[in-house]
Every structure is written in structure tokens, then in C-alpha cells.
């Protein structure tokens, strides 16, 4: 390992303040902001991918805008969205489903 290589801390010393009295709300704000950040990272990367493709003669941005799904693609996407919804709301489902003693 290079002697100048150094692993830097990423957290400040000490306790983080709690602004909300509800349990977990402060952590939830962090999660939402981390998700928003990574969503932005993806959006910026997609922007760059389209720009690079355009620069090389592939009009990706225009073709993406004009793209029409086939029936099969539409059905596949519908199924993917359903899976995503179930994952997103999985904790609600668990709380609300009837007690299954056989499970």
C-alpha cells in the first residue's frame, strides 16, 4: 500500500442531535435524503449517457422520447411496477395481513 494512502473518517465525532421526538424519524430523514441523492446521481448519469450518445451520432435522447412500447413490453413493465409496489409497501402488508398461524 502506498505510504501516503490513508483511509479518512466519514463521520464526525459525537452524537447526532435528535430533532424529532418520534422514534426513528431523524434516521428516516437521513434515509430519504440519501435516496434522493442517489436518485439524482442516476438522473445526472442518464443525462450524461444521452449527451455522450448524441455526441457520437446516436440520438438517444430523441429516440427515448419517441419510443413506443409494444404490448409485450407494456405487460412486462406493468408486472415490474407491481413487484416494485409490493416491495415498497411490504411492511404495511405484513402489519395488515391476517394472522396466519400456519406460516
Amino acid at each position, binding site marked *: 500500500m*502506498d505510504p501516503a494512502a490513508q483511509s479518512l*473518517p466519514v463521520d*464526525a465525532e459525537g452524537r447526532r442531535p435528535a*430533532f424529532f421526538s418520534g422514534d426513528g424519524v431523524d434516521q428516516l*430523514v437521513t434515509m430519504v435524503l440519501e435516496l434522493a*441523492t442517489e436518485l439524482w446521481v442516476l438522473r*445526472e448519469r442518464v443525462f450524461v449517457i444521452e449527451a455522450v450518445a448524441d455526441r457520437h451520432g446516436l440520438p438517444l435522447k430523441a429516440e427515448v422520447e419517441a419510443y413506443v412500447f409494444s404490448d409485450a413490453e407494456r405487460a412486462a413493465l406493468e408486472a415490474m411496477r407491481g413487484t416494485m409496489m409490493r416491495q415498497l409497501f411490504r411492511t404495511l402488508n405484513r402489519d395488515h395481513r391476517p394472522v396466519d398461524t400456519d406460516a
Partner: protein
Amino acid sequence: MPLELSHELKAAHDRDSLARQDFVSSLRGFILNDMAAGMKARFEDEIEPALTRALGRPPRTQDEVHAAMRKDTYFKFYSSVRYNAQEMVWRAVIPGVEAALPDLSRQIDELSAKGGGALSLNPDLDIPANVAGLDVHLMPGGYANTETPAAGAVYDNGLAVFSAGFMGPNLDDIGLSMSNYVKHRFPDFHPEHILDCGCTVGHNAAAWARTFPDAEVHGVDVSASVLRYAHGRAQSLGLPVHYHQMDATDLAFEDSSFDVVFTSMFLHELSLKDIKRFFAEAHRVLRPGGLLINMELPPNRELKPYDQFYLDWDCYYNKEPFYRAFRDQSPEDLIIAGGFGPNDYFQFTVPQFSFTEEAAFIAAVNAPPSFDGDTGRLSASLNWFGFGAWKAKI
């Protein structure tokens, strides 16, 4: 948008890190402008009237305002998001700095070898507890003395994201605004030796070298890490500045060594005891007829209770433990206690030099100070607060 640093030591961040920096910079802009305005409106429309009814009078202190705001959901989200954004600033730059570190020391050594300003480190210096024992600004690892320039690099790259361009093209607008205040307010004053105390990465010391190119400019800090970085940074910008590892409350310079002693955003990092020691030292190292000038957050006495509370947020939630204690003081009392004359104090506000037409800047320099909710806070209509004193001529 984050400022793109223009010197050779800037870290090369990968695409995703740059996107994270873009995001957190915009997030901070949203917090400090939109959310801040929304929170103030909420205070004025609902919280202040309710508080006035409860107290039987309008709130008189920032503590009364803070106690009421702490219960408010808007304040909770404002604070929580702002605290997170502060953490995210550092997290967005640290991977790039880590990747740059193996080459950074060599780069600095090469820049330092070019000549110009000198660097003198003192490995025996006792690092004060306010630097060694505290991650000020929530900067992971703090500014403390390390053998590598990591702390300097994290601070410089982080400040470029944090300030979203408000601090000028080289993060030097405070130094440019203060030095140009002196240049235009006191045109017959021609400083030859200038000292910046608590200079960190030397961004503002370099600005003084730009404004007064014939002067010899020195910067001191207790951290070897930030000073090594500062030296390479100034060399890269072609500005000869001499950096010394010293405690500003116990300077190793001879009496009457400087025409100007300058600080920026430094005093609020010190305990009151150390502030007093610093002013006594500043008085000692200034020559008779020399100028002490400090850029700082405005004193609480100049602001309404809500604006006091708003600016002191950092004291409670951003690891700035001495922030409020300083802002509660009378700056002239502190300066007078350091040995300056009671009639030699002056204070002023100036617009940002980097973003103001020269004629408007000169007009503002000669106008009386004006304080409002944007004095000293990063916002679109920012103006800087400064105060100082002349050392009596013999």
C-alpha cells in the same frame, strides 16, 4: 452549484461524486434560501403571535424564539435536513480526497520547491483542545494536526461544495472584500507586512496578497495539515504567502512586526479567554499606526431576536461551541481589553467584492454599516460584517 476549484491541488472526483456534490450544493441552497424564508414566514405568521400572546409581550431574546421554534415541525425538518446536508458535504468529497492523497504530498512538495512563500512547521506546538478535540463544522477527523495534508484537502474541497459559489472564485471573497475595504476606505494606508491568523487553507491570506501585491503576507494556523495544503495552494495560484504553524494566542513574532493583523471566521472558534489573549497578541505584533481587522458573524446586539436565533443555529447543531458566546459579546469591549484605544474601534458591512461593481463597492465602503437578516449569512443578498481598530501611534 459547487465551486470548481481552479488550483492544481483540487481533487479529481468521479462522476457519481460530482453528482452528489451538485445535489448537496443545491440542497443547501434550497435550505438556506427557500426553507429559511419559509421558516421565517412561519415564525412571523404563527409562532411569534402565539408567543406574544403567551408571554404578554413580543419575544425579547433568541432563547425565547429558539424554545418556541424547537417544537415546530418546520424547524425540525429545516434543522434535520440542514444537519444532514452538512454531513453530506463531507461525504461527497472524502472519496475523491482519499484517492488524491497518495499524490497530494508530492504535488505540494513540487509546488513548494518553486520558491515564493515559505512554510515553517513546528512539530512541538501544543494543539489547542478547540482544534484537536472537536470535529468543528462536523468535518470528520477535524482540522487537527496530521502528517498528511488530508484535513486541508477535505476542508478546501468541502468548502467549495458548502459555499455553492457564494465565497468567490477561489473561496477568497471574504479576503478580497476585507482587503479591498481597507484599500478603498483608507487609500493612504499602504501595508507592507500583513498577518492572517487562523488561516486554515490560506484562501483569504492569498486574497490579501492579490490585493496588496507589494506586501509580504503571512498566515498562521495550529494545524500542520491545513498549512501544508495552504502553502501548495497559494504557490499554485502564483501568490507568495508565508505560512507558519503557530497559535494565534501566543505568536512567535517580534513586537511591532505587522501593519495589518487580519482574521476571518476565526474568533467564533475560540473561547472568550483565547479571544482576549489573541487581541492582546494582535496589539503587540502590530506596529503603532497598524490596523486590526476581523471579518465575523455580526454581534447579536445588532440583530432582532429571530435573526440572532437563526445565525446561532450553528452553535447548537454544527459543532461550533463558542459561536454564540462570541456573538453575545461587544466587539469593541473585547478589542479595548486587548489594548486598543476606546476611540479607535470601527465596524462596517460590505457587499461581496467578487460580485459587486467596483463603483458600488466603493460607495458601500464609505457608507455607514447596515445590518439585516442577510448580514453574515450565505444567501443571495449576503453582505459581510467586519470590525477592527487602529493601534495608537506613538
